[in-house]
């Protein structure tokens, strides 16, 4: 999977916007959106919010967690614990990037938020590497990856699965005779 595809999935998340136009309810395959009234907040998917924002038809209201105080708390919590903590949104990285790129004028302290999210991300990736290494070193057979987000899995997924694949085969070499002499074509 490519990061762009993960971002595409993230665009289905809902954000609140305040439109400055009025429009009746619109009916889409994914569900009904609206009605849009000037000044009245309404929930829409991120892709629509960005599109409207680019045409200056709305103001984006940042998600509740996208706030310096809350993110500092999350970052500290993440640094303190050995396991992965629960993220406020399964797409926190993608949403931060999308919203800060297209609607940074509606989000207070955008730069600080960017840094905080990046710090949290770096902490989590370092943890992921560390646990992957100890997983391989101790030759474990399964691991529980609670609270990992799709983007995080995606940055190391291919590498890790390939490595584990090799390791599995090298380990079957240890038990000669039990290996099946067959091949899949």
């Amino acid at each position, binding site marked *: 999977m490519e990061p762009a595809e993960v971002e595409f999935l993230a665009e289905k998340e809902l954000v609140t916007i305040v439109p400055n136009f009025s429009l009746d309810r619109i009916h889409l395959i994914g569900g009904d959106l609206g009605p849009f009234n000037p000044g009245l907040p309404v929930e829409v998917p991120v892709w629509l919010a960005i599109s409207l924002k680019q045409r200056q038809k709305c103001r984006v209201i940042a998600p509740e967690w996208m706030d310096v105080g809350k993110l500092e708390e999350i970052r500290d919590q993440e640094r303190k614990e050995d396991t992965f903590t629960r993220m406020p949104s399964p797409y926190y990285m993608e949403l931060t990037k999308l919203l800060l790129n297209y609607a940074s004028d509606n989000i207070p302290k955008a730069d600080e938020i960017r840094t905080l999210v990046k710090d949290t991300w770096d902490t989590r990736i370092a943890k992921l590497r560390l646990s992957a290494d100890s997983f391989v070193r101790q030759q474990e057979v399964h691991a529980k990856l609670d609270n990992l987000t799709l983007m995080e899995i995606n940055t190391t997924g291919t590498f890790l699965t390939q490595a584990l694949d090799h390791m599995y085969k*090298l380990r079957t070499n240890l038990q000669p005779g039990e290996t099946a002499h067959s*091949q899949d074509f």
Partner: protein
Amino acid sequence: MSEAYFPVGPGLGLEESFLSLDDILMSQEKLPGRAETRLPRLGFALGQGTGAGDAITEGSKLEFPLWLAKGLHDSKRRIISVQLPNIYKEAWRTVLSADASVVDLHKMGPYYYGFGSQLLNFDNPENPEIAQAILQTFISRFRRIMDSSQNAYNEDTSALVARLDELERALFQAGQKELNDFQSWEKGQASQITASNLVQNYGKRKFTEVDG
């Protein structure tokens, strides 16, 4: 998804993977051994003697390619005997168990893992130790490969991969691809639409030019 060609991975076991290019290349690696009987008309195939009918005398020391050694090896008839290449011997196994990450596996045989797994075919009494050594080598080198492949962004990686064997290089490439994809997404380059590789290459040579 974006690539036109998916390489088949190495078999990495007692059987090689028929469709894997890596395994085909690996199977012609040389293996030291000795002829236990007279081998008529094989002198030519092994580069000894000139005439097509030359035989190899009993007891002569030879280097077989792996595919031939596998074919000639027979535990009952003892046509040839096979020795372990140095890297799989006790002395090197000790080195590898001390610190595997400093060993230049590419120099010691670019297909360390695949070739080592194939050696288990030859009923060597040291087989369990060899299999264990190969597995442990992989495990202790894993961290270094993971870290270097996922941190080296925009730099020359030739120094990093110089000591890796072919299997590890493929892993390294997988890690690099993930890193590069993520970085280009983060910088916003992923949203730019670019021409597919296939189309770009297509433009380089037109059929009309070849014909004309």
